[in-house]
């Protein structure tokens, strides 16, 4: 591989990511089954490609980081669907002020308690606790409490993917189908990956999902250190 330097250039890895994603997304839109979520399929295929051709993740990230970079402006852009829903959000401040702190608490404890029962070490538990928060918040929390930032990032992404694959089926079975409720639950439990999924449904679902992502991020940042000091 090293003999052709174009094959390890950022352009090549951007092209590879775009191409694999485009194919996965096309198949996903044709088959309409959540089991082959394009983010998940692309990720698995890229991991296989890196393993087969013995390409270090660091080299892939020369292109990958250029793609990841756009998460920043995308989160800012969520202000637009949020603004369009401003009246409905103002009417539902009570619902938000109840759901956010308790939801966040449930999200953290439901990971910590089984984790503790299974005998996971404190540094793993702390990497596990902020799993529903958006990646930069989760990494910040884990690092400040002695967790492993890279492991946290992997756990956060896994949480998001697991949630968007199972969530839509689960929410439908439970009758939680209204756009606002669907989007809120997905954004709350599955951060940005959930929001991307909610945006597929409607702009309204996306707005509530972005709102949930931001609010749960804040709540998790406040609650995790508190809970950890109390419990351990």
């Amino acid at each position, binding site marked *: 591989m090293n003999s052709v330097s174009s094959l390890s250039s950022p352009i090549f890895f951007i092209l590879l990511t775009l191409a694999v994603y485009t194919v996965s997304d096309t198949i996903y839109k044709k088959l309409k089954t959540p089991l082959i979520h*394009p983010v998940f399929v692309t990720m698995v295929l890229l991991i296989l490609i890196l393993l087969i051709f013995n390409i270090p993740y660091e080299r892939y990230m020369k292109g990958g980081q250029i793609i990841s970079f756009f998460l920043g402006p995308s989160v800012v852009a969520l202000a637009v669907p949020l603004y369009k829903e401003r009246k409905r959000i103002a009417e539902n401040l009570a619902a938000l002020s109840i759901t956010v702190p308790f939801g966040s608490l*449930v999200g953290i404890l439901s990971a910590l308690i089984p984790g503790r029962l299974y005998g996971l070490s404190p540094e793993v538990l702390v990497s596990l606790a902020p799993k529903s928060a958006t990646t930069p918040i989760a990494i910040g929390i884990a690092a400040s409490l002695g967790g492993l930032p890279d492991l946290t990032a992997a756990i956060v992404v896994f949480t998001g993917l697991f949630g968007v694959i199972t969530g839509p089926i689960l929410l439908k079975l439970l009758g*939680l189908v209204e756009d606002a409720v669907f989007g809120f*639950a997905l954004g709350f439990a599955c951060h940005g990956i959930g929001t991307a999924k909610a945006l597929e449904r409607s702009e309204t679902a996306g707005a509530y999902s972005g709102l949930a992502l931001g609010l749960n991020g804040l709540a998790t940042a406040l609650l995790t250190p508190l809970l950890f000091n109390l419990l351990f």
Partner: protein
Amino acid sequence: MLTGLTIIFGFLFLGDLIKEVLNLPIPGNVLGMILLFFSLIIGFVPLKSVEKPSSLLLGVMGIFFVPAGVGIIDQLQTLKRFLVPALLAITLSTLITLIFTGYVFKFFYKKKDGKRE
């Protein structure tokens, strides 16, 4: 389109700057989202200027998560030691969080006519 992108990147920068100066635990992009939201409300930023670039970014948001997801490759060694308990904790907790927030939010959420669900 260019005006809108400039505004979005302007708020992203502003968010990062505020995070750094005030040493806040919130990421700059979330702060940028909050600031842009309030700027739209007070009419400092017209909706029309940011609508197009916003829907462009949000329409393809999924792909932006792929590189971080591929990062799991470097964690496979670390994860191996406690793969099963960690996976159980994550999957269980994700399902519980989805169900809990979904039900609680639905219970208190008012429908368009102002009545409770």
